[in-house]
């Protein structure tokens, strides 16, 4: 009997051996890196910072929808046969965005997801002991810049927004936050950008760092923030620190967008992409922007099925002064619809030959030196009037475009001139909507847009082939200077308030 029991015992041990391991019940996905064990050293913290940069691409890929399409710069290549995109994309063109508009929700979500990774990486950096102080400061500055940039965009879109600068310990804490007044948001942006400017280098000495955020980027954005806040003196003093950092305008305007000449002397901050390989970092803007029926005529790849979004308007096309070299570099007028025979204009800035279908190499310019020069002109004019310094900045930009100097304008006229110059210089670079919001009161903007809308409605840039407009199309109401908080967010957190005018 004893023998039997011993035999049984040994059998139990033998059979259960596979389950006797101490960690039998702790399994993790072998194909992925666990978040718990990450952020251990400089290399991993660096990867986390790169990850934050990586999310920038996703945000920039769709930014035209929020920053350019609602403006007078662009419209759509209307598709009478497929109304599927009407609620999600066309709403931005026709100003019929509501709190349920899917792209409002997805935009909101993508910004706060990016902010989570910034906040989380900053928190991990603060506790990191295995990283040099200089590396830490560099990472911190880059992350703070991006946090400032995202909050700047968010507060332009929504006004008061929830301000969150730390990763949540537990998800339930998310219900504790309410929208912060815009002033607080600006204060945070200023703090972040000042801090970033103090820590970031003017230039990266190691080539492998080219494309990272610099001191110049932080100062330029801070200047833009001050300008938006109408803190003109601060804007001037901040922006004046940028030219000494060594930026210059490239002689040929089209070179600014040439993938062969990325991160040139005029570039202050651009979002990096890479085509021509399988690494997944390509851009594809031209596939979104080329006319719907252009197939390969513009992209160069016959199997293309382009989106026909963000089409330059008649209003935009006619706004260029005669002899402005930027017109040809910015807008293509060489494509005719095979159905109607009409010219369908398209944005040329991001149209360059590429070796693999669907994968372009074009970067996206966020901050350029010409933007800084025009901001300086604007800020000086607002602070002290159209001084010769202000004129000088404006004329630098005009001269490069092959246009004559301007002088002797009054403050109002100079302001209008700078705004016009910004429109053509920075066309389709996602600044027009904010420029319009910044330089006009909501009532002025309402009047302005409805006037533009009436013209576009009467004589659309791209024909609608008889499809009538809906009654709400191209009717702008002043509350629409802000986007609605996504209804989904209010559903989840009832404490969240909606912007006036929206349901």
């Amino acid at each position: 009997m004893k023998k039997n029991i011993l035999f049984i015992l040994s059998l139990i041990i033998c059979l259960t051996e596979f389950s006797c391991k101490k960690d039998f019940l702790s399994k993790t996905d072998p194909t992925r890196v666990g978040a718990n064990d990450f952020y251990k050293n400089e290399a991993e913290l660096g990867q986390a910072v790169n990850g934050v940069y990586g999310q920038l691409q996703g945000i920039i890929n769709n930014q035209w929808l929020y920053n350019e399409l609602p403006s007078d710069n662009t419209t759509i290549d209307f598709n009478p046969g497929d109304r599927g995109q009407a609620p999600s994309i066309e709403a931005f063109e026709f100003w019929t965005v509501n709190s349920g508009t899917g792209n409002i929700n997805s935009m909101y979500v993508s910004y706060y997801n990016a902010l989570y990774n910034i906040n989380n990486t900053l928190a991990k950096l603060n506790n990191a002991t295995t990283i040099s102080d200089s590396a830490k400061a560099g990472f911190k500055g880059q992350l703070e810049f991006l946090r400032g940039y995202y909050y700047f965009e968010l507060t332009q879109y929504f006004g008061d927004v929830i301000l969150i600068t730390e990763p949540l310990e537990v998800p339930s804490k998310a219900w504790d936050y309410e929208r912060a007044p815009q002033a607080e948001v600006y204060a945070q942006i200023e703090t972040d950008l000042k801090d970033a400017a103090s820590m970031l280098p003017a230039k990266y000495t190691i080539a492998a760092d080219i494309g990272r955020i610099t001191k110049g980027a932080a100062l330029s954005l801070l200047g833009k923030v001050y300008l938006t806040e109408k803190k003109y003196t601060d804007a001037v003093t901040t922006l004046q620190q940028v030219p000494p950092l060594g930026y210059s305008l490239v002689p040929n305007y089209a070179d600014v967008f040439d993938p062969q000449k990325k991160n040139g002397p005029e570039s202050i901050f651009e979002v990096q992409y890479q085509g021509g390989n399988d690494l997944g970092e390509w851009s594809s803007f031209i596939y979104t922007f080329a006319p719907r029926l252009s197939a390969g005529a513009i992209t160069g790849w016959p199997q293309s099925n382009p989106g026909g979004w963000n089409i330059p308007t008649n209003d935009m096309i006619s706004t260029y002064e005669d002899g402005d070299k930027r017109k040809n570099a910015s807008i293509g007028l060489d494509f005719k619809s095979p159905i109607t025979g009409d010219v369908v204009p398209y944005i040329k800035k991001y149209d360059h030959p590429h070796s693999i279908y669907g994968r372009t190499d074009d970067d996206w310019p966020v901050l350029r030196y010409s933007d800084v020069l025009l901001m300086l002109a604007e800020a000086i004019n607002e602070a002290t009037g159209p001084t010769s310094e202000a004129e000088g900045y404006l004329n630098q930009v005009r001269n490069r475009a092959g246009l004559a100097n301007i002088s002797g304008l009054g403050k109002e006229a100079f302001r209008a001139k700078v705004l016009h110059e910004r429109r053509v210089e920075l066309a389709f670079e996602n600044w027009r909507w904010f420029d319009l919001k910044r330089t006009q009161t909501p009532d002025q903007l309402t009047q302005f847009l409805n006037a533009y809308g009436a013209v576009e409605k009467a004589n659309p840039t791209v024909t609608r082939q008889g499809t009538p407009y809906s009654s709400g199309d191209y009717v702008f109401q002043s509350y629409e200077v802000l986007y609605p908080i996504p209804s989904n967010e209010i559903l989840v957190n009832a404490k969240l308030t909606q912007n006036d005018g929206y349901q």
Partner: protein
Amino acid sequence: MSKILFHFLQQKNKVFLFMLSFFLASFSFAQQKITVSGNVITEKNAPLAGVSVNEKGSASGTATDAQGRFTIQVNKGATLIFSFVDYQPKQVVVNNESDVASISMVPTASSLGEVVVVGYGTQRKRNLTGAISTVDVSKLKDISSANVTRLLVGQAPGVTVKQTTGSPGREFQVTIRGTGSLGAGSAPLYVVDGFPVGTSIGQNLNPDDIKSITILKDAVSTAIYGARGSNGVVLITTKSAREGEVTLTATADYGIQNVPDSRKTKVLNGVEFAQFKKDAFMDKIRYFENREPTIDEVPLDYRYPEQTKYSTNWFNEILNQNAAYQNYNLALASGKGAIHSLVSAGFLNQEGTLINTGYKLYSARANIGGQVNKFITMGLNIDGSYSTQPQANATEGRDQIVGASLIMDPRAPVYNADGTYNNYIGGHDGVFGFYNPVQMLKEAAKNYTNTNAIANAFLEFTFLKNFKFKPSVNAGIYNASYKQFVPSTISGENAPAPRDASENDSYSNRINISTDQLLTFNKDFGDHHLDVLAGYTAQEETTKDLSGSGNQFPDDLVPYLNSAIIKSSGSDEYGWSMQAFFGRLNYSYKGRYLFSGTFRREGSSRFGTKNKWGDFPALSAGWRISDEPFMPKLSWLNDLKIRGSWGMTGNNNIGNYSSLSFMNSSNYVFDNNYVSGRVVSSFANAELGWEKSTQTDVGIDLSALDNHLTFTAEYYDRITSNMLLSIQLPAISGFTSTFGNVGKVQNKGLEFSAGYRQTINAFTVWGNANISFNRNKVLAIRGVNDEIRSGSFYSDFNVSKVGRPIGMIYGFKMMGIFQNQAEIDKWPTQDGAIPGVYKYWDADGNGVISYDNKDMVEIGNPWPKYTWGVTVGADFKNFDLSVIFVGAAHYDNFRNIEASTLNMDGVFNVLEVSKDRFRSEAQPGNGWVATTNTWKWERESNSRYVYDATHTWVKNISLGYTLPKSKLPINNLRVYISADNLFLFTKYPGNNPDVDSRGGINPGFDDEAYPVGRTFSIGANVTF
């Protein structure tokens, strides 16, 4: 293997025959006594062993041996009583030996003496205190089934079995006592010969190998499976040799399958479609330009509809009518001697009702086991199978062949004049272009294979008289492969061939190992009976996947990745582990008071670090009132028992790593060089645990009229809480959702089942009927939020709201069709509406029908008020007949396909009923088919596409004939004819009211699935 079996078979005559034969020497009463020998057989002429044979009023008695033989000495003229569990007792007056030469015994309807397989053991049915249904597989053997789950249809109360697709070989959808979970799935756990194989039985288990199926429904039965028990458990036992018999059984079944015309969706033919296009074109000018168009304005292609050259019914073209069904099985069983063994092999070949689809299964099984010595019993079971499935999973719905065949241009021929395929259907005059579905089915290779090997082994030690210890191991190896090659000749939707050919290959290997250690104690103390089980189990599963895809082939000749110019590949690995300690105690006093308690403590790798282990207790009690002395002895009542149970179970189907947070790739470029970056995937939740179900069950079992009638009624109330749900988070947290344990769902219901069996002379009738009422209700979801909505625009929606059933069909409520502009102006603003457009209800009353969810309401209830099943049969002499009816009443399906087949804008072919559409106020049509002038509101989820799917199926009729005993060396020969899915009675317009393509919390979705065929088959079953 076969050598070993052969060896055992040779020992067959050695020992362990249950034979008790004694010859009473009679000296003193020789005059009055006679010695008689006889045979006891079943109604099917099989010998019945172990039958008690007693002389009435005397102590003398004996029992039959393995061949059913007995010899007894009795007084001449005495009455012999034959009794055996599950059989009606028989009394015979003995005058001479011929009176007992052949005693035929008939089973009772109730099988109270029957032993039922329960979790980790068996129990006498008489003593059950839980809700357990058994499926009498022997009654279902004629069904042409390629999957085991087919056998469950209509057989057990509380068990809903739906054939959601007619795709050959596919598992049916099985739900026990309602959908209990919003997030973790509601499929039961399947256990085959003690091996928990998961929430899917898979495709490869040969239905012919099944001996019995037991379904555990209430908590006291399922709690012993702990965190996998809450959706019920299906226990499947495979065949083994019968004691004392050596048999060779061969079965053959051959059938043909058809899709009856009544189950086809009717669309326009070529001429009608051209007319439709023409009218639509002209109506547009009439409406928008307010003038009469001239014939020359109509595009030439449909200017003269009567001249349309071709008319193709694409759905008919893709059908493979008279598809063959073949099933052959051979089993050799030896139940003689100490060691029993069985080997079987099967081949099943089911052609699909769509061309070039089908399912083939090759299976082999062997088990061997028995008493090694006084202390040790052992068993070994091996099952190997291989199946192939061409065109698997590539046929269902609008975006696949079946749906597309309804909406593609009927004016195109299948073949060109030169006999080649017309490879692009439509694609002109504003009609969408499609691949040729016939060519797709014939030329695009899409093949699944499954190769499984499953082995179980156990040893059982008997010691200290009442103790048994049984360690066992189970292992399953499952290999699956998929290979798809779409040649360049196949068009895409709106993309004419030639196109880039593509190849997709994948291979997965899953290994599942479990071990059980069971210690049992079993003893009677006078009137007290005690049954104790203590056990330990551990299980681990690991799956590895490898996949590759290729593009840009130089030609279509070599469909392998090697010849692709662009290739990509991937690999994956995932798994889980669990371990548990459990125990069960059954106690009964005089068989009158019954108690049972179980407990399981289980840990799972899927749960958060702070919540690894859970406890699952359950209790039950039963009271056999009929045995109480105070109960009057009623002649009609044989047995009456009431019982109740309560317990907690769990559901761990939340994905393997849901509690963890990972780093996702988010790469970037610096200085035109790729750099790797990482971002956080989600919140970790260390407290994530199992979903809990608490179930209370009360039942009554009775047996009456000499056990001819049995009846069971059951009430249950199951509350599932701590559901594993994705909780929506404010986006500012960084994420939109995280997994949490929240929410509550209730399923409560009533189940009734009755069985009847009566034999009058050579005529036996029998029947089983069951009906189930289940009500489910969401009691809570999350704190702030109170609904879960799933679905999307241009498709369906389901909504689960607090206080309402799970997954109600959701959308706009259609109030009619706008007849004129005045009506539109009076109605709340519905943007873009013109006469002929669906008129929707302004649910939120704000004066605007908004193009989002705000005006959507519940528009259909996908849950039947009741479901039922009736199986009736009759045996007359050598004939046997059985009929299975099943049905479900008062529930809705959402005909999502109608958003396409009633898409009136001319890009698709449309339903025949579209001829009766709205054309103008003067020609308003039937009142529910919209205008062709615009198309927007009609494509969204709305009440027009909701249909009552109440139905009755005559699921199977089988008629068999058993040949009388003859001189042939055949023990038993039975031939039969059988019809499966014979008649469907329903007003539902789709081809299958059981369709539920999405299941779970998205019930009732019908996007035109693979048609369910009707099968007629003939078969034979020979036993040597």
